[in-house]
């Protein structure tokens, strides 16, 4: 296929990804009258937002006093002070508005006796600047993500949004000046490649949890937006920070929401001890996720794991009223029966920390604009949700802040696009010569490669390497070895071979193209993690221990800064953390404890 044969379709805006943030941005653009295309690898309601369970945070104060400023404090503390305080303030202040808006869109939230949105406690959410747990997580049973994604899709049906379903974006189109002009995308049903030429391109492609062997993430979470951005010369921010969710079903990896502990669930070791009391005397089982995951791994490593191999701990809700379980946690009960073979009303659930969420991503500001290392927006390029790094999650995300992130920044990115298009700040520039060459060469290679590497085996190699070398606890030697290994795996990725050459719904081709993205994310993660010689949030190293000068191993003198990984030469640079909020005082650096 030559580039002349590539059809070009023109839009005001193209959104890549139809999960929560893509759909929220699409509502803004469709209702704002912009000609918008939304591309998605899967039918919108199959996006991974659908699997979120516990809730979306907002200081509505429906059950007890709450304030966005407390929410902001918790988020900064949860981020281990790596989050940007302007973006965090913006998100927490906007939370009540976007959650109420979602209710107006039709979201079937659970209700309090007064008929208001039901709220439950969640890890790290406290009242009065860290005092005691507060009910801030707005929930629809334990199916909040499902209810939210469907409500957002339904609102888009109302707004007549134009979807391109089962299209995979392959590469960003960027001109010499660095302006983003759209994407090249593959229609899975026909194998046809089309250029989506747009004034604005919004990435809402979600995370890349599939770089790990054991992951709560869906098969589709392959970091496509990160791969595309990296190949187009956009650096990736803070990629060493990955959240391991404390409660994945042992063996299966399927998520069990933190809302289970919000409703009163307790973690126990083989001595039947509620061990979190030792690690977080105040918040206990509702400490931040990184803290709980490390406690669990420590218990297992010290021989207090459960089961024949002593390799998991137990999540116990047998003391809760079965009626509460049936009403507030029905999905969890289904999952436990399906994937652990136990009914949590009668027996505790075997759980292990499981890769769940990427805190890092494409650098953006709180308006959803992608920014260069110096902070100036990249013309025509926007990102929101898990693919973006605003940065509101810093070194560790609080539970329920991901669903909030995608509402707030989905909306703000949409608004920024409207502003930039209407003010004429971005216009439709001509596509540069040869814009499709690199992409078509990649597809041609896949069609003609012989004697190459197997996609499935190479992906497993990558996932096992990440699992072993860059997990909950990180070790200097293992990180160094991991970087060397991933560099080897990169060579195998460059010569993957597929047997399927069909143009029609070629899933082998899609998986090979996804692997091209996974490798960029894996490499960014390992290289960034190896370089960061401190412990902060989810990144904890053996050679950065807890000392009086550096409590918890955090080194604010040398490492209170954001990492930027540049694909070219696998180079790192750094940028300062924004400590100045929009309207309130800075939340000053402090030792983090729960």
């Amino acid at each position, binding site marked *: 296929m030559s580039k002349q044969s590539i059809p070009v379709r023109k839009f005001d805006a193209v959104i890549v990804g139809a999960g929560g943030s893509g759909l929220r941005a699409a509502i803004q653009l469709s209702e704002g009258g912009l000609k918008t295309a939304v591309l998605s690898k*899967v039918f919108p*309601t199959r996006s991974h937002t659908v*699997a979120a369970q516990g809730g979306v945070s907002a200081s509505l104060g429906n059950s007890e006093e709450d304030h966005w400023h407390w929410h902001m404090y918790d988020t900064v503390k949860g981020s281990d002070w790596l989050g940007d305080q302007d973006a965090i303030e913006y998100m927490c202040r906007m939370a009540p508005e976007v959650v109420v808006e979602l209710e107006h869109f*039709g979201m079937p939230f659970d209700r309090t006796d007064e008929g208001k949105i039901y709220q439950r406690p969640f890890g790290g959410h406290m009242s009065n600047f860290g005092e005691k747990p507060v009910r801030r997580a707005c929930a629809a049973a334990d199916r909040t993500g499902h209810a939210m994604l469907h409500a957002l899709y339904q609102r888009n049906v109302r707004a007549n949004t134009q979807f391109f379903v089962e299209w995979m974006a392959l590469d960003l189109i960027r001109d010499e000046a660095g302006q983003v002009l759209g994407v090249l995308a593959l229609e899975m049903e026909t194998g046809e490649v089309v250029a989506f030429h747009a004034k604005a391109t919004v990435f809402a492609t979600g995370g890349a949890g599939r770089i790990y062997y054991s992951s709560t993430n869906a098969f589709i979470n392959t970091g496509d937006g990160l791969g595309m951005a990296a190949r187009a010369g956009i650096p990736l921010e803070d990629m060493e920070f990955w959240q391991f969710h404390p409660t994945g079903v042992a063996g299966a990896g*399927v998520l069990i929401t933190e809302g289970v502990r919000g409703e009163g669930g307790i973690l126990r070791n083989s001595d039947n001890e509620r061990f979190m009391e030792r690690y977080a005397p105040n918040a206990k089982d509702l400490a931040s996720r990184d803290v709980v995951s490390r406690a669990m791994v420590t218990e297992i490593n010290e021989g207090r794991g459960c089961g024949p191999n002593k390799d998991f701990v137990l999540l116990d809700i047998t003391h809760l009223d079965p009626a509460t379980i049936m009403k507030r946690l029905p999905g969890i009960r289904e*999952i436990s029966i399906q994937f652990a073979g136990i009914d949590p009303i009668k027996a505790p659930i075997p759980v292990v920390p499981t890769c769940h969420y990427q805190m890092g991503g494409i650098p953006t500001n709180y308006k959803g604009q992608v920014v260069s290392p110096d902070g100036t927006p990249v013309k025509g390029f926007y990102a929101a949700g898990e693919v973006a790094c605003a940065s509101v999650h810093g070194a560790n995300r609080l539970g329920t802040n991901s669903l909030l992130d995608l509402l707030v920044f989905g909306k703000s990115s949409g608004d920024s696009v409207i502003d930039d298009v209407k003010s004429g700040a971005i216009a439709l520039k001509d596509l540069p010569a040869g814009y499709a060459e690199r992409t078509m060469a990649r597809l041609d290679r896949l069609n003609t490669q012989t004697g190459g590497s197997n996609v499935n085996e190479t992906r497993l190699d990558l996932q096992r390497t990440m699992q072993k070398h860059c997990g909950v606890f990180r070790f200097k030697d293992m990180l160094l070895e991991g970087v060397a290994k991933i560099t080897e795996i990169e060579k195998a990725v460059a010569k993957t071979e597929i047997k399927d050459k069909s143009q029609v719904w070629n899933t082998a081709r899609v998986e090979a193209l996804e692997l091209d993205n996974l490798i960029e994310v894996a490499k960014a993660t390992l290289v960034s993690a190896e370089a960061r010689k401190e412990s902060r949030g989810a990144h904890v190293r053996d050679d950065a221990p807890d000392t009086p000068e550096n409590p918890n191993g955090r080194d604010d003198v040398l490492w209170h800064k954001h990492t930027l990984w540049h694909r070219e030469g696998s180079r790192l640079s750094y940028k300062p953390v924004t400590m100045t909020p929009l309207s309130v005082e800075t939340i000053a650096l402090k030792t983090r404890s729960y």
Partner: protein
Amino acid sequence: MATSTMLFKIYRYDPDKDEAPYMQDMSVEVDFALDRKLLDILTRLKAIDDTLSYRRSCREGICGSDAMNINGKNGLACLTDISELKQPVVLRPLPGLPVIRDLIVDMTQFFKQYHSIKPYLINEGPRPERERLQSPEERDELNGLYECILCACCSTSCPSFWWNPDKFVGPAGLLNAYRFIADTRDQATNERLDDLEDPYRLFRCHSIMNCVDVCPKNLNPTQAIGKIKELMVRRAI
């Protein structure tokens, strides 16, 4: 390790090279200690033959991607226990929709019917500053309705949908129609009932109840359809 060989008969069709669909015998070593679900086995089969095509995503029964016909009954591969399957396991695409390739069907008609019921909250009143109030009891009316994952297991097991996929809304669409009728915040009940009062759109349902039998989320479209009919009768008198 408790490994054994599992036998499959799988519907294969690639319009790029096959003149007609055919059933292919496939077999795979299964480790019953590791593999629980049919989707785990499909992943193993695909590692052997990368041309085998099917949709999948969340692998936990919430995204609705991997619906297929398993030993004659519609279900999700990710929620189907392999220990319960009679061998050879016969896998076919969902019945009644055009096949694109292997186990992948064209779902256009299914979604067209879903979209036809205006699947969104209609409330043209002034937007309050806070949430619209709804009592816990009113909210409970949505249970068993809002959980639909649009996997199409129900509609593609319904003979009425097979005969009139263009005219009969089908169990999934009707369940969702009732989800909005039952929502105290929605103001369009009359318009919704008008739209469904039609010999085909609603009344092709003959309570065969295949939909209830196959729903992987244990929802009951027949009951929802019954409630819509009840409301029509009630407003007529």
